[in-house]
C-alpha cells in the first residue's frame, strides 16, 4: 500500500508566507489552527502555573487577590474558547477529515479559511481584554458580578461571541463534507470512528454555539445600555443567565471531549493491529452523547436556586449520558484483546487517556447524585473532575494524536525515547496535580479561592509540584517535536503500519491528497481482511 514520498507536497508547494495566509488547502489551514491553538494553550498554561505557584502558601505568594482572580479567569477563558474547543476539530479535523473519507478538500474551502480569520478576530478581542487589564468574572461570566465588575468583560465576551461564529463555520463545513464528499465505497458505516466523533461534534457546534452568542450579546447589551436581563437591580434574573450559559456550555463540554474520544478510537486499533471492537456501539454512542448533551445543562445548577423538579430531571438525564461513555471505554479495552500491542508514544497517551478519563467519568457520578453533589459543588472536587476529563481526556488524546499523525503531517519522525519520557512525566505530573485536588475538594476547599486555610497547604503544595512535572513534559515534548521538523528522520508513508486512508498516501501528503481516487471496503481491515463482518 505504501507510496513513495514525492518531493512535492502541501508544505513546499506553493512556497512563501503569502501562499499560506491565503491558502484554501484544508491541510495548511489545519496546520495553522494547530500552531495557533497550541500557542494559546501555552499562554493558558502559563496562567495555570502562576495560579499553582500562588497556592504554594496561604495568603500572598506572588500576586494579590485581584491579580489572582484575573489569572484564573484568563486561564479558563483561554483554555476553553481559544484552545480546547477549536483544537482537535479545527486542527486535526481539518487536516484529516477530508483525507480519511477520501476527499480532496472540505466542501467549502474558502469558508474554511474564513473560519480561521474569524477565529483570529475573536482571539484579538480576547487578547485586548488581557491588555486592557484583564477580566475577573471567571470564564463563566456569572451575573450580576459580570455586569458590575469594572474589568474588560465586553472584550472577552465579544471575543467568545466571534470565536463561536468560527466554530459554527467549521462545524457546518464538516457536516456537509461528510455527507457529500465520501470516496466510493465509503458508506457511513465505513467511516473511520474519528470521522464519527468529529461529525457528532460538528452537530453540537452548529446547534449549541448560537446560544452562547445570544447570551453574551444580552450580557453586553446589559453592560452597555443598562437593559435589565440578568441583574435584579435592573429587574433581571441572574439564574436565567446560568440557564442560557450552560445550555451552550454543557454541550460545549462534549465539543471538547468527543473529538478526544475520536482520536483514541483511531490510535487503539492502529497500535493493537486489530479491528475496532464494537464499531457501531462506538459510532452510535458519539451521536447519543451529542443529542443527550442538550438536556443535561441544569446539572451545573443544583445549588443555584433552580426548582427541585428541574434538579431531579437534570440528574436523571445525566445518568443517561454516562452509559454511552462507559460503552466507549469498554470497547477500547476490548480492542486490545489478542492484538499485537506496541507501546509507542501515541499508545501510551491513549492508555493514559483511558486511565484518567475513566477517573474523570466516574467522579462525575458524585456530581449526578444530588445529595453528594450539593456538598461537592464549587469545591476543588469539581475542579479535579473536569480537569481529569478535559486535560486527562482531551489533552492526552490531543498529544496522542499529535504523535500519531506527526509523521503524516510533517513527514518526519520524532524521537521515540524522548516521547516515552514525556508521556511518563505527564502521567505522574497530571495525577499529582489533580489527584490531590480531589482530596482537597472532599475536605471542603472551595474553588476560586485566593487564600485558604492552613490545613490545605500540604495538598496544595503537592498539586503545585505536580504542575511543574506537567510543564517539564510539555517543554520536552515541544522541544523534540520542533527539533524533528529540522533534523528528524524522514518518515515513511506508513510508519505505524496502520490501515486507515491517510496512511495510504505520502508523508507529508501531496496537495491534492490522492493521486488516484481511493476505494474503501472497511474502516479497520486488520486481522483477516475482507472477512464478512459478523457484527456491527
Amino acid at each position, binding site marked *: 500500500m505504501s507510496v513513495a514520498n514525492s518531493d512535492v507536497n502541501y508544505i513546499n508547494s506553493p512556497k512563501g508566507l503569502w501562499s499560506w495566509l491565503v491558502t484554501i488547502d484544508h491541510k495548511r489551514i489545519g496546520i495553522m489552527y494547530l500552531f495557533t491553538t497550541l500557542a494559546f494553550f501555552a499562554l493558558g498554561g502559563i496562567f495555570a502555573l502562576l495560579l499553582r505557584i500562588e497556592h504554594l502558601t496561604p495568603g500572598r505568594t506572588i500576586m494579590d487577590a485581584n*491579580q489572582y482572580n484575573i489569572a484564573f479567569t484568563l486561564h479558563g477563558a483561554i483554555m476553553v474558547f481559544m484552545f480546547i474547543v477549536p483544537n482537535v476539530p479545527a486542527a486535526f479535523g481539518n487536516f484529516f477529515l477530508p483525507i480519511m473519507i477520501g476527499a480532496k478538500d472540505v466542501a467549502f474551502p474558502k469558508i474554511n479559511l474564513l473560519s480561521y480569520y474569524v477565529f483570529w478576530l475573536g482571539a484579538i478581542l480576547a487578547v485586548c481584554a488581557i491588555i486592557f487589564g484583564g477580566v475577573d468574572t471567571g470564564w463563566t461570566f456569572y451575573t450580576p458580578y459580570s455586569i458590575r465588575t469594572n474589568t474588560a468583560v465586553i472584550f472577552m465576551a465579544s471575543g467568545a461571541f466571534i470565536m463561536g461564529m468560527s466554530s459554527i463555520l467549521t462545524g457546518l463545513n464538516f457536516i456537509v463534507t461528510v455527507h457529500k464528499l465520501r470516496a466510493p465505497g465509503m458508506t457511513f458505516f465505513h467511516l473511520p470512528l474519528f470521522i464519527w466523533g468529529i461529525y457528532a461534534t460538528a452537530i453540537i457546534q452548529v446547534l449549541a454555539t448560537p446560544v452562547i452568542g445570544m447570551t453574551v450579546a444580552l450580557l453586553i447589551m446589559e453592560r452597555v445600555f443598562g437593559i435589565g436581563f440578568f441583574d435584579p437591580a435592573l429587574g433581571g434574573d441572574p439564574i436565567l443567565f446560568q440557564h442560557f450559559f450552560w445550555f451552550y456550555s454543557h454541550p460545549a463540554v462534549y465539543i471538547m471531549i468527543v473529538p478526544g474520544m475520536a482520536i483514541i478510537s483511531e490510535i487503539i486499533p492502529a497500535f493493537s493491529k486489530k479491528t475496532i471492537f464494537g464499531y457501531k456501539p462506538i459510532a452510535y454512542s458519539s451521536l447519543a452523547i451529542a443529542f443527550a448533551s442538550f438536556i443535561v445543562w441544569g446539572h451545573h445548577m443544583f*445549588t443555584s436556586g433552580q426548582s427541585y423538579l428541574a434538579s431531579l430531571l437534570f440528574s436523571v438525564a445525566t445518568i443517561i449520558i454516562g452509559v454511552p461513555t462507559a460503552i466507549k471505554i469498554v470497547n477500547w479495552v476490548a480492542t486490545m484483546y489478542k492484538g499485537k500491542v506496541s507501546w509507542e508514544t501515541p499508545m501510551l497517551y491513549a492508555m493514559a487517556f483511558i486511565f484518567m478519563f475513566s477517573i474523570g467519568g466516574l467522579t462525575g457520578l*458524585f456530581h*449526578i447524585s444530588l445529595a453528594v453533589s450539593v456538598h461537592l459543588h464549587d469545591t476543588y472536587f469539581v475542579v479535579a473532575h473536569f480537569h481529569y476529563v478535559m486535560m486527562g481526556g482531551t489533552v492526552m488524546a490531543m498529544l496522542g494524536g499529535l504523535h500519531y499523525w506527526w509523521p503524516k503531517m510533517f513527514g518526519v519522525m520524532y524521537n521515540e525515547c524522548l516521547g516515552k519520557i514525556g508521556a511518563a512525566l505527564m502521567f505522574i505530573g497530571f495525577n499529582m496535580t489533580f489527584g490531590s485536588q480531589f482530596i482537597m475538594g472532599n475536605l471542603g476547599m472551595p*474553588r476560586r479561592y485566593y487564600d485558604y486555610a492552613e490545613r490545605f497547604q500540604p495538598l496544595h503544595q503537592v498539586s503545585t509540584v505536580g504542575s511543574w512535572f506537567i510543564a517539564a513534559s510539555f517543554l520536552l515534548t515541544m522541544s523534540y517535536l520542533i527539533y524533528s521538523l529540522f533534523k528528524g528522520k524522514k518518515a515513511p508513508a506508513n510508519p505505524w503500519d496502520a490501515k486507515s486512508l491517510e496512511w495510504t498516501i505520502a508523508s507529508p501528503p501531496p496537495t491534492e491528497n490522492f493521486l488516484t481516487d481511493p476505494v474503501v471496503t472497511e474502516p479497520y481491515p486488520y486481522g483477516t481482511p475482507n472477512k464478512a463482518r459478523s457484527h456491527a
Partner: protein
Amino acid sequence: MLEFLQRLKFPLPQASTFAPKVDLLYDFIFYSSVFLFIPTIVAMIYFGWKYRTKPNDNREVPYIDGHHTFEWFISAFVGVIFFIIFVWGLIGFNELHNPPAGTYEIGVVGKQWMWEFNYSNGKTTRNELYLPKGIPVKLVMSSPDVLHSFYVVNFRVKQDVVPGMYTTLWFQADQLGEHDIFCAEYCGTAHSNMLAKAIVLEPEQFKAWLQGSDPNQLTQLEIGKKIFNTRNCVACHSVTGVQTQAGPTVKGLFNRKVNLSDGTQVVANEDYIRTSIINPATHVVKGFRPIMPAFQGLLSENDISAVIAYIKSLKE
C-alpha cells in the same frame, strides 16, 4: 489500604444530621467507582502486556468486531448502578428540600464580603452564626449585590444566595463547637475572605445568648477589634502593615498624612477615619479603587468610636 483510602475520603466532622447520610452515599459511589475502575484498568494493562508485540511477531490477529450481548450487558450493568446512585441521591436531596414543620428561622444576608445573621428578636451578628444543637434551623437568605453561596462543610450543606430572591436552606446541627462557613460562589476581590463561623451551643446556652444583652463585657478597644474582624474590614485593610490591592493598611494610620486620588493630602484624624467608614467615597486613597461599601446606618456611633480606638492602637 482501605483504611488509608477511608482516611483520605472523610476525615471531616459529621456535625449535622445530613452529614452521615451524605457520607454513606459518598462511600457507596466511591466503592462502586473503584469496582468499575479496577477491572477496566487491570484489563487494559493485562491485554497491553500479554499481547505486546515482539520483533518478528508472526501471530495471526483474530478478527473480533464486537459482541452484542456483551454491549447490552455492560450498558445494563452500569445503567443499574448509575440508577441506584441517582435514586439514593434524590432521597437525600428530597430531605434537604423539605424542612420539617416548626424549624427555627434565621435571616442571612450575604454581601461583599461578609455574612450577616438576623435573629427574630432583632439581634444581629456578623460572621458568627449561633445555632442551637439538635433543633432544626432554616436559613432564609438574600444578597444585596452579587451571587454568594452559603457552605458549611461539616454540615455537608450548600445553597447559593441570589440577589433579587430568597433562597432557603435547613439543617440540624448536632455537634457543639465552631464550624467553618465558606462563601462557595465566586463574588469578587475578597471572595476567599468571606468567611464566618457557625457556633453550635446547647439549646439553653443558645437561649441565654439570644436573650442576653452582652454576656462578656468588652472594653471599647476589644469591641473595635471585634468589629474590625467580624465586619471583615481586615479582608482589605491589613493590621500588620501589609498592603493589599483592595485597600490600604490601617497600621500606623492615625495622624499620618494621606495622599488622596484627587491630589490633595489630609491628616488621618478621627474625623477622617469616621468619614471613611460611613461614606468611603468621600476620600479615596491614591492608588486604590472606590470599592469599599458604605457603612452608613450599619454601625452605631459607639461601634464607630470603638473601631477608631482600635485603629489608634495600631501604631507603627
